[in-house]
């Protein structure tokens, strides 16, 4: 089976620190980090939901889902967005003319618009690193060790095993995009 590189983000281990965001910005020099951490179900980040002391707070790192059938690629009128054989969806910044069609097409709000350069930006799964046999930079900088990288199609890979063994979910499966990013949901408190 062909390679399908992707990530699993383990919400059980994500501590919402945003090291991934900082790491991404350093590695890719984007206008913003291409991976951003939201606090679930609240308007204000780092804020729990519920009423004290019965509270919960979960973090949700959001980034390009490296779809199997990426709507952004389809939408881009000048083919600046490319779906690679081995999984990543990347953006050719040279080509991009800043039309923002892709921003509207993406159901994951994953593309970022760089106002200064008048171009779109997005996570390319650190293809410059993975082509050298390295992991994406956010993976090695994750404080909680909550991001797992690998070949989703290789049944021996750690990521494939996690998908087989643990509860995982994908974002908006109804959109038919076939995301290459899986999430492990946080566990429920077991109580006493």
């Amino acid at each position, binding site marked *: 089976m062909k390679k399908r590189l992707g990530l699993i983000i383990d919400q*059980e*281990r994500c*501590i*919402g*620190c*945003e*090291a991934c*965001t*900082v*790491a991404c*910005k*350093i590695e890719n020099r984007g206008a913003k980090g291409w991976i951003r951490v939201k606090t679930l179900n609240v308007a*204000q980040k*780092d*804020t*729990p*939901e*519920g*009423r*004290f*002391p019965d*509270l*919960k*707070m*979960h973090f949700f790192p959001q980034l390009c889902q490296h779809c199997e059938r990426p709507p952004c690629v389809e939408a881009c009128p000048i083919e600046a967005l490319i779906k690679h054989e081995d999984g990543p969806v990347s953006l050719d910044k040279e080509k991009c003319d800043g039309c923002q069609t892709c921003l509207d097409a993406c159901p994951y709000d994953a593309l970022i618009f760089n106002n200064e350069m008048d171009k779109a930006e997005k996570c390319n799964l650190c293809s410059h690193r993975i082509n*050298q*046999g*390295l992991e994406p*930079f956010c993976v*090695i*900088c994750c*404080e*909680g*060790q909550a991001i797992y990288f690998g070949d989703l199609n290789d049944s021996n890979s750690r990521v494939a095993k996690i998908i087989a063994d643990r509860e995982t979910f994908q974002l908006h499966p109804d959109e038919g995009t076939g995301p290459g990013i899986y999430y492990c949901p946080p566990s429920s*408190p*077991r*109580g*006493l």
Partner: protein
Amino acid sequence: MAVDVDTKLIRTVCPAHCGIDACGILAHVRGDRVVKVEPADFPNPKYRRICLRGLSSLEITYHPDRLKYPMKRVGKRGEGKFERISWDEALDTIADKFKDIAAQYGWPAIGWTLGGPGAGTTKFGAYLRLASLTQSTRVSAWGYGDSGLPCGSRVLFGTHIPYGMLYGTLFTESRAPDVLVVWGSNPGEAQPLNVMRPIMDAKEKGTLLVVIDPRFTVTASKSDVYLGVKPGTDTALALAMMNVIFQKNLQNDAYILRHTNGPYLVRIDTRKFLRGKDIGAQEENEYVVWDSVSNSFRTRNAAETVPSLNGAYAVEGLECKTALQLLKELAEEYPPERASEITGVSADIISKLAERVGKAKKVTFVTNMGFTRTYHGDISFRAMGTLAAVTGNVTATFKGGHLPAVLNWKPFLHANPDKPSYARLGILQLYDAVISGKPFPVKAVWFSFINFLNQCANSKKIKNEMFPNLDFIVVADLFMTPTARFADILLPVTSYLEFSDFVPFPYPYVQLQQKAIEPLYEARSDVDIAAGLAERLGYGEYFQGGEDAFVDLILDSKDSSLEGITREKLKQGAMPLNSIPEMAEEFDIPFSTPSGKIELYSENLYEDGQALPVYLEPLEVPVSTAKKKYPLAFIQGHSRFRTHSMFANVASLLEMNPEPVVEINPKDAAQRNISANDRVTVFNDRARTTLKASVTEGVGPGVINITQGWWIDQFEEGSVNHLTHDVINPVQEKIYEPNMHMNDVAVEVIKYKEGQS
């Protein structure tokens, strides 16, 4: 590692003062510039790590506001007017001034106020060596929030740092605990790598995670059980848990018998331990137990004795009870219902948690210095530690010595063995030494690794009473901090990429913080600065060879754990300690307490009313519901965006977390007509602090939180430490060093009104 040919990779360490995380860093150097930092490899890949601050650390090194050359003050103190001078002029001025002051008041009038060196050693050791040689004063910074824990730990365990005994096993490959209780600590933000990762690993293996904290922190968000305790009431909670444990007979009697002073008899008349001489035994000073076989008093080591753990005994009119009996009687006063009223935690949860802890095979207690930053925080620690001890959860297999011996600073002290060492003052005792000359006058202060005005209690007092009483202030720093503005001489120091140091962390490794680039501008390393001053004071011979020589001084100190480890080898990467303390199943730890055992009962504190871990109300935190002038408890959590006051000026972190906010519960906010993002003023009799409100359930009613470390100039008015007090707890002073009680402060909050400062 694939990088282009022009890039050099230097393995170094981020030594920021976030506990002892000491992340290994691979610095990418192109020409004379570090262009990137990334987490370096470790022999065990689990230790490869970096945090968002470490990732941003290049912004410190290349910050436009770096102090670039030595300066002398030309305006008034605090005005921030300085003039560039040469290093020679700076060091000559300091040496002359120190000599003048010493001639008039003696060398102890020079106070080396050294804050947190992080994971570094030689940079701190250099100043200690100079303080020691000149017999001036070392101002210990434990008391700026951290000494409550060692105070409590010294009484209970006889050890300064109890982590090894409480949660050392988290760092070994041993079995995950059944229950892990994180008490008054938020490693999820404050120590995400060294502590939070192994906590999450344990939870993955099935450990039940319990978090006790007034705030619903990141750590709490990962918990199975959260107890939102009121600040400063932890002792009542621990006593109530012991109440349930004793009631249900879930304590670990065998452990208590073997490792604690629980079976020793206490005289009811004097409340001191019964001694051999009281019963006519030859071992006059030996502790006495009640032998349940012969029904008689016996000294503790007498042959064939089966000591009773409980009960009252009288012989010839001498009435005694076992120490454990006295502890049980104290715990009896705190049924869960009573503790619930004090702590705000439901009685049901207290009972169930106590039962769970009592029945579990292995419970690990993780704590740090948060809940000991209250007036009676040392007792809070003792109460938690006592709970751990009576349930047999103080690790007798992980000898406290998990830190290499270098941390006693011995290699740096007694450079001249004929000379006695420095005088010592706690940081809170420095206030009086400067202001009223007690116990001796301090006239000059050197500040390194500390933003004193920003981070120490009662800012106005420091500014208005302390600083004006100092003849001379030296600050060595990277930036014009709120403290630096008050310097007479201001010295630019290097960032971590510009000097070398020895880093004895993370356990079980040691690392070399290797210089990646030459110092920028005219900045110098602390070792170089100390050496330059030493030269002028006549001690140059003890500072030859710079940082490398001091690193070797530690490596050659004949500590067996460092054998075979060299500076050259460390340039390649982290090395494991050569010998690691024994990990036998169980052995008797010689606790450095008077009894050599864990002291459930401390007779030395009887006169202070604290022989047992009694619950005493916090100094300021309003516990009762009675109407008070300042009804809100103010606490200071730690933020992942800063390490104390470091990184508060880093642009990419400010982008994510732009300004200080006060967290307030919606109920308290509504009562005060405060909405989200309103400007509000937090105040008490000491000061006013104005900032933005964050209305959140993350703190309980009656509690407000402002994360610590924001610089004074980042507030509209005031700051966190404008609100804190500098009251000395005399019992802590007696035990070790008085603490600052940043989490024991009462305030009121109102909507900000113009022109009302």
